């Protein structure tokens, strides 16, 4: 053939386009989740409370809706960090891929795959765009928590956030986001797949505990509960920071676990992306 020019799109332009798209696709739902979440953090920290169901048998009124002050919610500083840390880590990390890959299930990806960009590269760019937005959401929470602490009246719910907590609050959601992305890239029903995977893991844990020491128990311990487990990677510094909890995981083990599980998740996304391409109709 004659000398033909093949102008491919730049990675940065595709990245920004994907970032804009993710923010546009479900912006209403995103606002409905994030705004109440940030407000909740604000109200709790300023010594407010939340509407809650109160069970009062003594006055004969039974269960009724009432305002529950933050001081009566049983939080202390560490528990506040832990609660919000886990909310962000688990809920946001697992739900976020469903937002990111909305309309992009394998069976809906033909349109993208006609674009002049490698398919796996395209999937990874979208994953990176979603990861950056997720990190921004978490950073906004951390910023809010830090700013509130500067106000004169606050409940000190978030005690001084240690460097470890900062690290975990960023790494935890990204870690779960990475693994939940595997389901989104792999399956046409990512929400159901994630729920099934979480439920399946719970069943495996229960089974491993119910049986005498075995290969299964060892594998479960390594994958889910041990010092190099995904749990350790997502929350090791929370666990070690909170007084009263056994310091089972050293920061070194936690960091190694974080690196390992992030890399493994990344590899799993590449594998899932290639599998989707090979299985296309």
């Amino acid at each position, binding site marked *: *053939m004659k000398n*033909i020019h*093949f*102008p*491919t*799109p730049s990675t940065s*332009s*595709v990245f920004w*386009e994907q970032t804009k*798209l993710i923010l546009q*696709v479900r912006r209403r739902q995103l606002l409905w989740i994030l705004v109440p979440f940030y407000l909740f953090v604000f109200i709790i920290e300023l010594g407010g409370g939340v509407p809650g169901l109160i069970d009062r048998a003594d006055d004969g009124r039974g269960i009724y809706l009432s305002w529950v002050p933050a001081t009566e919610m049983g939080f202390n500083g560490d528990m506040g960090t832990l609660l919000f840390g886990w909310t962000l880590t688990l809920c946001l990390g697992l739900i976020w891929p469903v937002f990111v890959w909305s*309309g*992009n299930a394998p069976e*809906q*990806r*033909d*349109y*993208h*795959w*006609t*674009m*002049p*960009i*490698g*398919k796996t*590269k395209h999937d990874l760019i979208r994953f990176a765009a979603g990861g950056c937005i997720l990190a921004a959401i978490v950073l906004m929470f951390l910023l809010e928590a830090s700013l509130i602490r500067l106000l004169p009246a606050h409940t000190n719910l978030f005690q001084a956030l240690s460097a470890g907590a900062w690290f975990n609050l960023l790494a935890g959601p990204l870690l779960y986001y990475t693994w939940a992305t595997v389901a989104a890239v792999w399956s046409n029903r990512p929400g159901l797949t994630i729920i099934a995977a979480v439920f399946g893991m719970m069943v495996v844990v229960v089974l491993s505990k119910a049986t005498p020491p075995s290969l299964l128990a060892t594998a479960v311990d390594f994958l889910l509960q041990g010092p190099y487990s995904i749990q350790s990677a997502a929350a090791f510094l929370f666990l070690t920071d909170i007084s009263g909890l056994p310091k089972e995981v050293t920061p070194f083990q936690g960091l190694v676990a974080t690196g390992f599980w992030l890399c493994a998740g990344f590899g799993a996304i590449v594998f899932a992306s290639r599998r989707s*391409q*090979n299985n*296309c*109709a």
Partner: protein
Amino acid sequence: MRPFLFDNFAERELVLSTHGLSRRFGNRIALAGLDLAVPEGAANVLTGPNAAGKSTALRSMMQLTSPKPGSIQIFGLDVAEEGARVRTRIGYVPETTQVPYPWMTVERLLGHQAVYFPNWDETYAQRLIHALQVPRDVPYGTLSKGYARRVQLILALAHKPGLLLLDEPTDGLDPLARDLVLGLIVDHLGAVPTTLLFSTHLLSEVEGLADCLGLIRDGHLVVQLDRERLRNLFHSYRLVADKNWQAPLELQDQILSSSNSGREWEFSIWGRPGEVKAQLEATGARVEEPRHPALAQAVHSLLAMEVA
């Protein structure tokens, strides 16, 4: 298989060629060793019955399905190795009108596409929007099939691709929309140097457009011809002869289809019309002037030949 129905266009530069392209879905064979050649600058029509493998062939070219085995070369590049680069120079209109972002307005969708194609010509895109009377601020998902098709055409044309792959682009359109879409394709081919591969089974639409014909059936190519060659060498012959009349033996291989009613016979025969007519008349038959069949009739005869 009749060799005279295959032209490999060896003397012409090929934009696209497939080699032994095969694909199976479960027990169904979609492609069975397809060897297609698409010469540069030509309007190539790929036709065949439903489920012949036309869409699978085009999807393979876009890497939407993986041939197993087989290879595709486009612009001299192996699609399996350089698919992303190849797609920068392809405009593709798929069989369906779905996109993953039905909420996007037409303007936003075009903007999205433009990000991926550095050659995107915004002025040309706007001109196409105007010519096709497409509303810009309406969500794509609310458009009728006719308007969605128009938008898909703009998406495929605005970066002025060297190769245009159209998979039944007029299917399901009303006659007005069909004329508009076909007119736009003709105008584009006149204005921008483009090789076209147009998959359709509505041959009356492409009668005036086709330069080359590929006929696909059961996943493999049964005919691949230059239109000029088809026009010069493929004719219908009507003749009157005795009831016991038999076609000359030397024409047997060239007869592609035949029918008879009493003493009247109708043949589709490959060969120079003067020579064929003379051979038929030599058997005592009274032969009318040979006729050029329309493209649709020619394809019908060619398909009948394969069944026989």
